[in-house]
């Protein structure tokens, strides 16, 4: 354990940015957990007498067009946005890894089918595919998660397939098979865990993507329903107010979005360095 800690400290020391990113990630998780409790106002409470007020001591982030406190909304939205990102990536990871691992291990027609499906998904302009899925299945949170998961599937599937392929003929796999383990068990217990590290890096990079995707969908009206606070939809609404000078409505959720995505991306880079120094980029 201490070797890992020493290694981690070495990496972070060489790469202070990763340390900061990790810290921010933890902070976001904490916010997601306690957001509603630390928010100064009810994020859904309207107060039209105080609408469109600039940031002030009473409202640190100002208020929106129906008088809701923006700080509270941004804080509470953390839970939703992180939730969307984590569930989409988790779903994508699980499904893609399973498909890819089976394809790489068993080969044959399993491989062919999985590859065809992934190629089909990859051939679509990704954002348009997400648009289409949400528009077709309906404007709900679950569908946004599903759409984001679907468009990210191919990355995991390909990666899992490649990694499993490489290790399929390795010595330890042969040994495992010879000692009588069923093929499925060999795959699950011996081969797959070794493929995890590079896939985790991909996962953390995809977290940022998932949030941006949801934000993009909100911008064209396919996002979460009002009055639910979500960073993307808040930016989309605030966009209309930029020109008239109420810059705070779009800026703060935009910054929150950027911070989260930024942190996930940097974290992914750092994770890569941590996992495998040879692959450090």
């Amino acid at each position, binding site marked *: 354990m201490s070797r890992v800690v020493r290694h981690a400290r070495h990496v972070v020391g060489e790469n202070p940015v990763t340390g900061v990113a990790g810290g921010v990630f933890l902070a976001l998780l904490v916010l997601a957990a306690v957001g509603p409790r630390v928010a100064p106002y009810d994020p*859904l409470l309207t107060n039209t007498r105080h609408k469109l007020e600039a940031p002030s001591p009473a409202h640190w982030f100002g208020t929106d067009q129906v008088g809701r406190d923006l700080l509270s909304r941004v804080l509470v939205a953390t839970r939703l946005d992180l939730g969307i990102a984590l569930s989409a990536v988790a779903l994508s990871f699980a499904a893609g890894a399973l498909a890819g691992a089976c394809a790489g291990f068993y080969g044959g027609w399993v491989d062919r089918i999985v590859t065809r499906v992934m190629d089909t998904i990859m051939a679509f302009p990704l954002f348009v595919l997400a648009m289409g899925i949400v*528009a077709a299945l309906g*404007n709900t949170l679950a569908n946004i998660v599903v759409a984001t998961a679907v468009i990210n599937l191919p990355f995991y599937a390909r990666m899992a397939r490649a990694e499993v392929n490489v290790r399929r003929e390795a010595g330890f796999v042969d040994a495992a098979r010879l000692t009588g383990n069923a093929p499925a068990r060999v795959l699950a217990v011996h081969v797959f865990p070794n493929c995890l590290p590079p896939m985790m890096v991909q996962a953390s990079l995809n977290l940022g993507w998932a949030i941006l995707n949801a934000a993009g969908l909100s911008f064209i*009206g396919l996002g979460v*329903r009002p009055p639910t606070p979500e960073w993307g939809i808040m930016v989309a*609404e605030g966009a209309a*107010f930029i020109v008239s000078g109420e810059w705070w409505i779009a800026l703060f959720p935009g910054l929150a979005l950027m911070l989260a995505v930024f942190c996930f991306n940097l974290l992914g880079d750092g994770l890569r360095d941590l996992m495998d120094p040879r692959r450090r980029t």
Partner: protein
Amino acid sequence: MTRRTLLIVALLALAPTPSAQAQGRADTLIVVTESGPNNLDIHGVGTNRPAYQAAWNVYDRLLTFGVKTLPDGTRMYDYSTLKPELAESWQLAPDGMSVTFKLRKDAKFHDGTPVTAHDVKWSFDRAVTVGGFPTFQMKAGSLEKPEQFEVVDDLTFRVKFVRKDKLTLPDLAVPVPVVINARLAKKHATAQDPWAMDWLKANPAAGGAYRIESWKPGVETIYARNDDWKSGPLPRFRRVIVREVPSAGNRRALLERGDADISFDLPPKDFAELAKAGKLKVIGHPVENAHAYLGMNVKNPPFAHPKVRQAVAHVIPYQEIFDSAVFQRGVLLAGYPIARGTAGYEAMAPFKPDPDKAKKLMAEAGYPNGFETVLSYDQGFATINEPMAILAQEALAQIGIRATINKVPGANWRAAFMKKDMPIFLNAFGGWLNYPEYFFFWNIHGQNAIFNTSSYQNPEMDRLIDAARFETDPKKYAEQVKGFVAVFLRDLPRVPIYQPQLDVAMQKSVGGYQYWFHRQLDYRQLARE
């Protein structure tokens, strides 16, 4: 190389280009809009609202409306006076069952051929035959069958009435009955397409004040003045460019920086601010015979119970909505079903938020603990609808009505309210012909037209509406209008919230703007001052 050089090139490119374009700029009008025409033929299938603007300026009609000046100096069409356009005079028959028009002798289509009564007949036959919106609009003025249209001679045209209807003549001045160059159109007609719908979609066969110079759907439409136009004073702008700019913020920025001359569709907040800032000319006019309302389905519980609907009327925050969603660009109705400027209007604002009374009504109706429901609205108008919905949702929660908000994409909105199964929803309606019974006929009458979104059917109401439609005695008419308003306020199939306003923002150098009932821009009156 790389970055530095690239930056320098970019900055050089951004330097302003000299004004070789300056002369062209003064007699060109640049209009920015959210969306443009999807069809240059107003009789076409699924023609959208921006297409009416194209049709209005590119085609002529037999008649048009006069102008009147309001106390504040703004001008609008005068629905009580009809003026000649292609018809230079007309005569009602002694028995009152037909009208004969004399066409002007010097009118020509854009291709130089003269306008004759045969063209008028072909065009009107087309309007009443193709179905859809054009036929529906013609019917609103009792123009229903091709047999009503008669060519007396090349320059004389007769319309026979099926019944005496005060709306017939005004209905000939609305955008729909355009006069098409029949000879040119017929050259492109086929057996399957006898009305040349395919060709006229992109190729107007017209004779109006402007020609279409180019049409790029989804991008821009460019109009060029028809210098041989005789049906009215020659327009001052030589060219009109209508650019589609989907982002409202950009449209406002363009106006404020002077890169665009005029725009309609900005959010009400922007109009309120631009009016206050004073750098641009902002003209607002309440839309006639129109209101935005909270509709309820009266056929299905829980809103089937009249006390529930009254409870809703007593809890909606009218003033708050008027201030925050609409920025006071309109007229507060707070329940009154007739708009300002229409006969029978009274500034009475019958309802004020009274949560205690509302709770009592809910208990009397058998819902002391409220119920769950879904509040729907048209996402295409989200700028206003969303804050309205949020405020309404909050207010309804006070009396126990827990509403989830359902945003319906614009393309699906008509299908949604055609099904008539939404329990409670936000919608708006405006009628082109400014009579209260006209509005009630399409929205409240038991004939259950598509616009009767509440599925309200009450024989007592129908009797009053039908009487008012054909009543000629002004005293009896006023009684009937009062009557159907009273029944409405008792039954409340919908709660009218406010009367919308048509706002326009333009450069101070642009003058001549006139409000039209069709809410589209008439380029013919505009000028650079």
